[in-house]
Every structure is written in structure tokens, then in C-alpha cells.
């Protein structure tokens, strides 16, 4: 599936419309996405930082797309997640790359990294587990 087609499909999910991200790269084991900054995504009352929960949600969304994309695939069921917050995510676009660590018949494990200007300075990293059945 092309990134544009995947982005179009995302529009069906209300919460993904709320996040308003677009898929920019997609293959069998990777997905990359970009999300523009918006006031509704802010978490800190004083500084314009992204909400930590929004970063976790964005990475979860990209991780799910990474393990299951296609016209008639059921979305995978999220089991749990761990997020390591490394730096504040400031005003500006946010990027996430998700990589499948292992995908079996029942389970998938996906690693994610989220950055802004510099891929070598991630704002957060995550590990997500999904049930595929």
C-alpha cells in the first residue's frame, strides 16, 4: 500500500483525525509518519510542549499501522506499551518511525522512535505489543 493510500484510510479513525498525522513511508517492517503541531496537542500549561500522552498515542498509531496495513486487515489489538521520554517535544512537527521487531501469528512487538529536527536526538522511544488474532 502507498503512504498516501494509508493516510486516506486513517481518515476513517476519529482519533487519528484528532491527531492529524500523515504516513510518509511504509513497507513490510517500517512505517514513518509526520504530525503537525497544534494547540490541542499541548500538555504543558506554561510551555508549548506536546502532551506526553499525545506522543505515546502518535507512536502507538504508527506502530499499529506498521504491523497491519492493507485494505481489509483488522487493526491489531494493543496489549501494552512502554514509553521512554527523552526530551521535551517543542512547537513544530513531530516525526515517528516504527519498526517491527518480531511479528508472529499471534503477537507482534514494535519499536518506535519519535524526533523533531534531528533523528539522532529523539524526543521519545517506545515498545508496543499487539495481539494479531
Amino acid at each position, binding site marked *: 500500500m502507498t503512504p498516501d493510500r494509508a493516510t486516506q484510510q486513517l481518515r476513517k*479513525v476519529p*482519533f487519528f483525525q484528532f491527531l492529524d498525522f500523515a504516513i510518509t513511508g511504509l513497507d513490510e517492517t517500517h512505517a514513518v509518519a509526520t504530525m503537525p503541531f497544534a494547540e490541542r496537542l499541548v500538555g504543558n500549561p506554561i510551555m508549548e510542549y506536546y*502532551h506526553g*500522552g*499525545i506522543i*505515546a*498515542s502518535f507512536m*502507538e498509531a504508527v506502530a499499529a499501522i506498521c504491523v497491519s496495513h492493507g485494505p481489509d486487515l483488522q487493526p491489531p489489538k494493543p496489549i*501494552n506499551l512502554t514509553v521512554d*521520554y527523552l526530551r521535551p517535544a517543542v512547537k513544530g512537527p513531530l516525526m515517528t518511525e516504527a519498526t517491527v521487531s518480531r511479528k508472529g501469528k499471534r503477537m507482534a512487538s514494535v519499536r518506535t522512535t519519535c524526533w523533531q529536527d534531528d533523528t539522532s536526538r529523539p524526543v521519545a522511544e517506545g515498545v508496543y505489543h499487539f495481539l494479531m488474532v
Partner: protein
Amino acid sequence: MTQPDQKKLDQIARMWSHRGRGLITEMDLKIEKVAIDGVLVRMPFNPSFCADEEKTLLHGGVLTALLDSVFGLANFVAIDGISSMATIDLRVDYLRPARSQADIMVRAECFRQTRHIAFDSGSVWFDESDQAEVARGTATFALTRGEVSIFDAMTQSRVSK
């Protein structure tokens, strides 16, 4: 500082609600209980947080965001003189599908604080008869303590406006 009284706690909770912006405002959170040993918060059903077109299933990410927010409030209430806090890590287990249009309830507590670190845990369920737990999370926070607490800074900035 001496043990803060309930009036101070309620004041902190009101300030947190009024000064909230961004996602906190979108979630339309209602604080139901504030105490040193934990807080209870209600989030009304919001169709834009759903994972399906029929709008019957909340996206898991919303529960994660909710836990992170309410941990912030629990810290704010339980810890004296925080000038800033940052989430270090967050772990969430999704215990069952969040399939309901009922209000969501979150209970969170700061169960251990040191000078630099706060440890929190929390639980999420729908406000319906079985109250089955939908998600459970834990998080750690890095604290910066200073002369001016967030609470004081907010009070002062509000007065100056």
C-alpha cells in the same frame, strides 16, 4: 511545610483545571476527588477519541494520555513545592477493549516521592455497573523543586494578568 489542608488541595485542583490548556481542555476533565493519597477524575465520552467509525470504541492512546495527565494532577497535589515535572517513562497495560460510550473514570496516586523522583500508578474504568478495569498504568517523573512552586507561579501569573 505542614500537611496541606483540603481547602488548599481543592484550590490546587481548581487551578489545574482552570489553567489547563491543549489536550487537558479537549478532554474536558472533571475532578471528583483530590487527596494526598490519590485523585479521581472523570472524562465524558468524546466521539473524536474513538478508534472506529461507529464511535463505540475509545482508542487506547486516549487512555494512556488520560493516565499521564491525571498522574500530573496526583503529583501536583501530593508533592510540595514542585517547580516543574517531566515524565521519565510510562507503561500502560490495556486490560480489555474500551468499548463503551459511558464516562471514563481514572484514579491515580503518587505512591512514592523522593527529592528528585515521583512514582505513580493509576487505573481506568468506565462509569457503568460492572466497573471493569480497562487499563492500568505506572509512570515515573523527574521533579524540579524550587522556591516558587508551579502552584505559586500560576497563582502569581493569574494575579498579574
